[in-house]
């Protein structure tokens, strides 16, 4: 725990202070990591969000039809996606896909003495390896979340349009009027917090690996489990703060 907070402190130092003291991080590496962490996750994020939008619309339609208020389906889809399911699902995908990859990569570097080699070359591993990954995650997870929200709404639209005979304009108008800007912003704030938690846990677990391939395996599993757990707790807390207080 102490080491985790120490890593957080080091990330702050190497991101915010060190560049002004002549020790900048590599901007090109941030973009490289943005591609690895974010861009490559786009197809999976799109597919998941679309299917969840679809499922939400079907479930909402089944229940709302009983009450004769089918026209509320777009409202339900958009609000659920923006507030909860969008940030949560994208975070789950990124934990499984990118968080685990970061832990495995850093862990392998640790056991093959690459991290030690960096330290001996007087290159700080946090500046060289961790900061670009953190910044890439902080940018890409909110971007993926907004993208996932949009694709999810397309999923909802496809049910409403093809099965419930909504016209596209009505679907868009209902979605946009019911969901206000705060619904979108709260989702983005959540995804920003999740991004920080996921990447710091992933890096912390990776840098602490000991004991060869087995250690890398343990750390990767640990990274996924802890990220999921902490992310879900954080989600509950943020929902309570944003919508329940």
């Amino acid at each position: 725990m102490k080491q985790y907070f120490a890593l957080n402190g080091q990330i702050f130092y190497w991101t915010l202070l060190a560049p002004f003291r002549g020790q900048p991080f590599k901007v090109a590496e941030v973009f490289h990591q943005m591609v690895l962490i974010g861009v490559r996750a786009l197809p999976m994020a799109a597919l998941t969000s679309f299917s969840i939008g679809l499922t939400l619309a079907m479930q909402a339609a089944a229940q709302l039809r009983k009450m004769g208020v089918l026209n509320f389906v777009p409202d339900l889809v958009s609000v659920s996606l923006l507030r909860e399911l969008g940030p949560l699902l994208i975070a789950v995908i990124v934990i499984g896909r990118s968080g685990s990859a970061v832990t495995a990569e850093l862990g392998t570097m640790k056991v093959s003495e690459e991290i030690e080699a960096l330290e001996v070359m007087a290159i700080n591993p946090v500046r060289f390896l961790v900061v670009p990954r953190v910044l890439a995650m902080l940018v890409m997870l909110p971007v993926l979340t907004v993208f996932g929200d949009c694709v999810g709404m397309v999923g909802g639209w496809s049910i409403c349009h093809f099965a419930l005979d909504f016209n596209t304009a009505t679907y868009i108008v209902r979605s946009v009027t019911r969901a206000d800007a705060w619904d979108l912003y709260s989702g983005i704030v959540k995804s920003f917090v999740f991004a920080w938690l996921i990447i710091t846990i992933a890096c912390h677990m990776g840098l602490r690996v000991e004991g060869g391939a087995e250690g890398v395996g343990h750390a990767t599993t640990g990274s996924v489990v802890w990220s999921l757990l902490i992310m879900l707790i954080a989600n509950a807390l943020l929902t309570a703060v944003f919508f329940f207080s």
Partner: protein
Amino acid sequence: MSPTDQSTPIIEITDIVREFHGRRVLNGISFKVFKGDTMIVMGGSGCGKSTLLRHVIGAMKPTSGSIKLFGEEITTMDEQALSKIRRRFGMLFQSGALLQSLTVGENVALPILEHGKLAPDIVDLMVKMKLEMVGLTGFEHLKPAEISGGMKKRVGLARALALDPELIFSDEPTSGLDPIMTSVVDILTKELTRKLGVTALVVTHDMVSAFRIGTRMIMLGTGPNQGKLIAAGTPEEIRAHPNPEVQQFIKGEADGPVPFKLSKDDYVTRLLGHPRHQKTTLS
């Protein structure tokens, strides 16, 4: 051959002790390495050679004792001060420890780019020079996964030499190299130390190489002498050393003070089960 400078100890180790879970891996080791010296650290497997090296580069802190590099105490140094010292030395890791995500050329360029503000074509030239020194010109664009273990080690050496260090640490520099490349690496080390006054600390098992490049030698003991310095001196003194363990090691004899079968005395007891012997859980 330029004589070594006896007035300036580049490395000064005084009575270092390192304990892991109550077991002394390093037990009161002291030695000095002077400018231009090639100090060879020898010893059987598990005697603490690599642990000693990790202490000297500042990757581990000793339980007690003092380690001075370039006259500065590193055991109490913070990371920032240690970074400054580390820029003055190069380290060749046993596995090469190349960054797998970078090409061979990028690996060698890494310390140059990180610690200097040079024009890209100068950096390029420096990388080519360093790779030429280890006989790997034309391999710049390959990834470490695409070259052999011996080549990785040579790239590791080129990277260690990238900043023209005053001091080089090598962990098994010739293991995994063919006899010709072993000679090349030895000659390179010799030229650096004898002609340019670079100081080297080399951990090795390769006795031919050790006697070819070493100007001073130390040996760490095993068994009852675990982690202790059992011999120190010039290559000639080590060759004539009276300690039978040293003689067994440098001659590479299977049996001697370090027995051929380490557990032969209590073999039967262990096999048939001894009340104090822990049972294995293999079955």
